[in-house]
């Protein structure tokens, strides 16, 4: 009972802080302040996911948040060419937003009891799949098509980013984020091995415990970015054959295993009896490599002119 009270007050503090930071991020005058507020928001959000019992999501949120941070910090605060909304317009917007939020709140509070859930159905086949983590089962078995296509979404975004280059250097390496300094150098030499081990761990336990390819891939991408910021590794050329092969590997392996399912056991993205776990791990490994690379390349941006040293 007391633990319940304790938890409830903790949740309340978390929620209030979360909303305060969000409000700050929306209303801050300076773009910079808004960005920092948002980064803090991302961390608190990961906590919220833990409180909601979704550790897989919390890990993803934290990992993606970590990648979003440099992206946002590096983003331009270009004010745009439009006139800002006039005060009455803002007031009207705020009123309608409040109305929508209020309606949603009514719906949330009147949620049906007992809540509908697919948890039972999702757990039942876990034994046959030899998986311990139901979220992984959803991502790579029940709704594997979503996951496959979501990697395609990321790939499309990457191609979209690549297409923003100048014609003459779009296959070259992106502009290097390198800003070497002794402490960064030290960090870049010490952290990546640790990060890689943690990533492998996340990937490996993903089948049975919270963790999985996205979390691992994000970590690897972050390590890669660190290496490049320290100037230890130059960004790869986008027209490089190995790079392209690695980018394609994940979705290609996923697709190939999916299509092989047509032959055996006879359905797209179905796994033969007893093969589910190994195949899922193969897919996850291939996807980890590709997604890590894609995320990293997205952060690096389009190809750029080589510095005329």
């Amino acid at each position, binding site marked *: 009972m007391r633990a319940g009270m304790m938890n409830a007050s903790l949740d309340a503090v978390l929620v209030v802080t979360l909303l305060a930071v969000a409000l700050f991020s929306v209303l801050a005058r300076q773009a910079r302040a808004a960005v920092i507020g948002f980064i803090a928001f991302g961390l608190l959000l990961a906590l919220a996911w833990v409180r*909601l019992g979704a550790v897989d999501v919390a890990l993803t949120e934290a990992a993606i948040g970590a990648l979003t941070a440099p992206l946002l910090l590096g983003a331009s605060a270009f004010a745009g060419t439009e006139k800002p909304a006039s005060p009455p317009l803002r007031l009207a917007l705020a009123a309608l937003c409040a109305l929508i939020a209020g309606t949603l709140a009514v719906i*949330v509070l009147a949620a049906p009891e007992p809540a509908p859930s697919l*948890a039972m159905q999702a757990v039942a086949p876990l034994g046959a799949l030899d998986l311990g983590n139901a979220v992984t089962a959803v991502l790579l078995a029940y709704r594997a098509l979503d996951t496959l296509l979501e990697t395609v979404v990321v790939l499309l*975004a990457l191609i979209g980013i690549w297409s923003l280059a100048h014609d003459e250097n779009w296959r070259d390496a992106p502009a290097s984020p390198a800003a070497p300094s002794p402490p960064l150098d030290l960090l870049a030499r010490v952290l990546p091995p640790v990060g890689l081990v943690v990533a492998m761990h996340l990937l490996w336990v993903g089948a049975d415990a919270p963790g999985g390819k996205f979390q691992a891939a994000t970590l690897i991408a972050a390590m890669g970015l660190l290496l490049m910021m320290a100037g230890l590794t130059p960004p790869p050329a986008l027209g490089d054959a190995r790079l392209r092969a690695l980018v394609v590997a994940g979705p290609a392996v996923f697709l190939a295993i999916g299509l092989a399912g047509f032959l055996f056991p006879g359905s797209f993205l179905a796994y033969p009896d007893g093969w589910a776990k190994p195949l899922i791990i193969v897919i996850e490994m291939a996807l980890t490599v590709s997604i890590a690379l894609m995320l990293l390349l997205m952060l690096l941006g389009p190809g750029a002119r080589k510095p005329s040293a």
Partner: protein
Amino acid sequence: MTGASLFGLAACVLIGLGLYGVLAHAAPLRRVLSFNLLGAGVFLLFGVAARRGAAAGLPGDPVPQALVITGIVVAFAATALALMLLRRLTALRAAERAADGLRDDPKGR
């Protein structure tokens, strides 16, 4: 009020805030930030549904949790694409301004 409902209400506020921000701000970066708040609110709503659907020994319904993971990755891709577009736009506009500045003819434009 259960913990899930509390987070549910937080999600509603976030959605309201995010919507307001993305529509009221003129600067693209602020819009993208607000869009992410909006997205976070929507994901939290899924999280609440997952939490309320806890059963079979799981802390939550795994299906919405998986949907959120997919959604987060998609939102990140969107953010990255938007910010890269913004970066390119800024560079081009700056180049335009520089070119305008270089133009000597005071009557030109």
